[in-house]
């Protein structure tokens, strides 16, 4: 195996991300890129400051920092799995990125290793957002002795968890290849990961509770998740780092051995709903929405979650339906062929209504069983309008993200930036309006106006994209 090939491929993947993801849609302009970077850096700095203030105020000098770090340690695997689910679903759509490497003189092992490293670096960036602020503030409050503790409690377990998940994924892919259902991994892998989340969530909660109890009772607590932390405490950070490196190398070796020798393209669509729908434009928009594998994955996640809530007798309003509404991000790009392949693509406003309408139909279909289950659990009828408004608003926002940061075919990463920026803005606006403490009627009017603004910008964005395609304006 040539290490230079691995390094070159790794570099190629990152160049792809930088040029084809961070340079498209709204990010095509340098001013927009700098603004988004500043927004993200400011958000991260603000988050770190907030985390520091909270940790100093509540845990500084109390001796509680250690159990808090332990609790964070046992939750690392859960968060690594959450991140892995997102990354895995995204990478499944990344055919174009994979195809980049097929015409190059590299072996499958080199490709697997380079891709694994690339995934790892993406996961690292995401984990940095989840645990970065906590790690920095813990060290700031606890002092330098906490640097090895944070490393052994957060970062070593995070990377090991990712590598183990990756190994599990490749083993599963091997099994699916043997069973000749490898093309269905777009459906099976997220299902397995979803069930993993359902299993690990109560385990993480239980572990956190046991840590708290052990601290109150003044006894030591150990679980496999705390292995690196325990090793660091008993043998020091250097031995712990060595064990971490050896473990990582062993898992990487196992990944290389488990990785399939060839790439099988995934099935991206499933034949659902009758053919006659294709006769009408709106019908075709419904077909594209229902047949996408991400929709099936999102619906399965919603159903798994609802059953989980039912089994554990947890009664919460079914905001989980919002997961289905995130499909709006792909609504514009997935239906682009319908507007591009004919000389008369239809009026922009009508196309926008078709985009949003098809998502509303999907939401309605999924909502019926989920809401019935929630009502049977004892949720009040009053909660339903709130959920409906939230989901409908989410459809509008998701559609706007897909228009402002259009994901290309085979390159789904473009949406990541859009999702991060939009969620940040939405959360800030929601919190801001909460501070104003307006009368509910006024808040409702403001939200209606904001949604109308979103609709306006979506239609304006679609018109602009169409005019760019016709070279009426420059991009």
């Amino acid at each position: 195996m040539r290490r230079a090939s691995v390094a070159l491929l790794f570099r190629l993947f990152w160049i792809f991300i930088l040029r084809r993801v961070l340079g498209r849609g709204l990010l095509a302009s340098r001013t927009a890129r700098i603004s988004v970077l500043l927004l993200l850096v400011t958000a991260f700095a603000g988050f770190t400051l907030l985390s520091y203030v909270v940790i100093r105020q509540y845990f500084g000098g109390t001796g509680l920092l250690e159990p808090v770090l332990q609790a964070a340690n046992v939750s690392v695997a859960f968060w690594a799995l959450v991140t892995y689910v997102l990354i895995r679903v995204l990478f499944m759509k990344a055919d174009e990125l994979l195809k980049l490497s097929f015409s190059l003189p590299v072996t499958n092992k080199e490709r697997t290793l380079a891709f694994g490293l690339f995934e790892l670096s993406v996961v690292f960036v995401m984990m940095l957002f989840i645990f970065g602020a906590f790690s920095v503030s813990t060290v700031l409050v606890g002092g330098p002795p906490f640097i090895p503790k944070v490393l052994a409690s957060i970062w070593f377990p995070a990377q090991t968890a990712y590598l183990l998940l990756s190994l599990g994924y490749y083993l599963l892919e091997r099994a699916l290849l043997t069973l000749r259902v490898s093309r269905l991994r777009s459906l099976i892998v997220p299902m397995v990961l979803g069930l993993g989340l359902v299993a690990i969530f109560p385990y993480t909660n239980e572990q956190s509770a046991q840590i708290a109890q052990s601290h109150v009772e003044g006894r030591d607590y150990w679980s496999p998740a705390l292995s690196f932390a325990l090793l660091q405490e008993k043998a020091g950070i250097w031995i712990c780092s060595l064990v971490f490196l050896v473990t990582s190398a062993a898992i990487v070796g196992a990944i290389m051995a488990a990785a399939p020798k060839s790439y099988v393209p995934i099935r991206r669509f499933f034949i659902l709903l009758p053919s006659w729908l294709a006769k009408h434009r709106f019908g075709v928009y419904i077909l594209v929405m229902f047949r996408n594998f991400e929709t099936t994955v999102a619906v399965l996640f919603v159903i798994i979650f609802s059953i989980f809530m039912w089994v554990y007798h947890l009664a919460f309003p079914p905001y989980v339906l919002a997961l289905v509404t995130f499909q709006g991000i792909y609504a514009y790009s997935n239906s682009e062929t319908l507007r591009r392949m004919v000389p008369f693509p239809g009026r922009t406003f009508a196309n926008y209504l078709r985009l949003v309408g098809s998502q509303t139909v999907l939401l309605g279909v999924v909502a019926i069983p989920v809401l019935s289950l929630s009502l049977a659990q004892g949720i009040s009828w009053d909660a339903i309008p709130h959920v409906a408004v939230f989901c409908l608003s989410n459809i509008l926002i998701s559609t706007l993200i897909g228009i402002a940061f259009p994901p290309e075919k085979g390159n789904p990463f473009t949406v990541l930036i859009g999702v991060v920026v939009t969620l940040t803005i939405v959360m800030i606006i929601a919190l801001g309006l909460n501070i104003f403490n307006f009368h509910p009627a006024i808040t409702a009017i403001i939200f209606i106006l904001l949604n109308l603004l979103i609709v306006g910008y979506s239609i304006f964005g679609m018109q602009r994209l169409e005019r760019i395609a016709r070279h009426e304006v420059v991009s």
Partner: protein
Amino acid sequence: MNLTVENLNFAYTSRTQVLHDVSFTIPTNCIMGLVGPNGSGKSTLIKVILDLLQLQNGQVKIGSDISQSRNAKMSSIYLSSNDFLPEFLTGEEYLRFMHGLYGEALDCAALTSQFAKYSMAGRHRDLIEDYSHGMRKKLQLIAAFMLRRRLTVIDETLNGIDIDALRIFEGDVKELVAEGRSVLLCSHDFAMLERVADQLAFLIRGSMVVQAPVGDLIADHGTIADLANELIQVMETP
């Protein structure tokens, strides 16, 4: 005339003028071959004709309707060079969708026979996602032959289809224009153009340098390939 193009100019930016004063016509019952080296502006010309790129200068008429009108759009069909098709539909659904757009009912018997004719029997209920590159091209051809518009524009769609399908296509396209229709056929397959095209238009660096009956050109120059070589040499001579 089924297509009239007059004094067409097009530029992507102020510095990149792609089409220079292009004028030509396609009469009824005529297959016009459009040839030219890569980057000569063939696809741009086709897109401007079909109003997929904004008309900047000149005039384009399909029949008696200007290219931006609904009538013009309803009387033309475009087969693009890439296989940019809705992969979430089956072949049958794609044809149903296209027929819906043109306001026509899908003839299921005709569909089945067209699929069989192009060696795709029984595949019309498979997703386009599962079609090969050649099958996608054939599907586009089937759509054109079923919808039978006044003007059919084929932009290098024939690249990648097998010899058998090419032979069937040649028969079908001749039959199509025999009913008062026209075809603008952009291709690098000179031998096929010699067999099917009635006229030939040669585009070099955005200028229409030749438009003449294929028979006359062959009589004067031997083959289209010989003519192409001559023209390119002349254009490249400083």
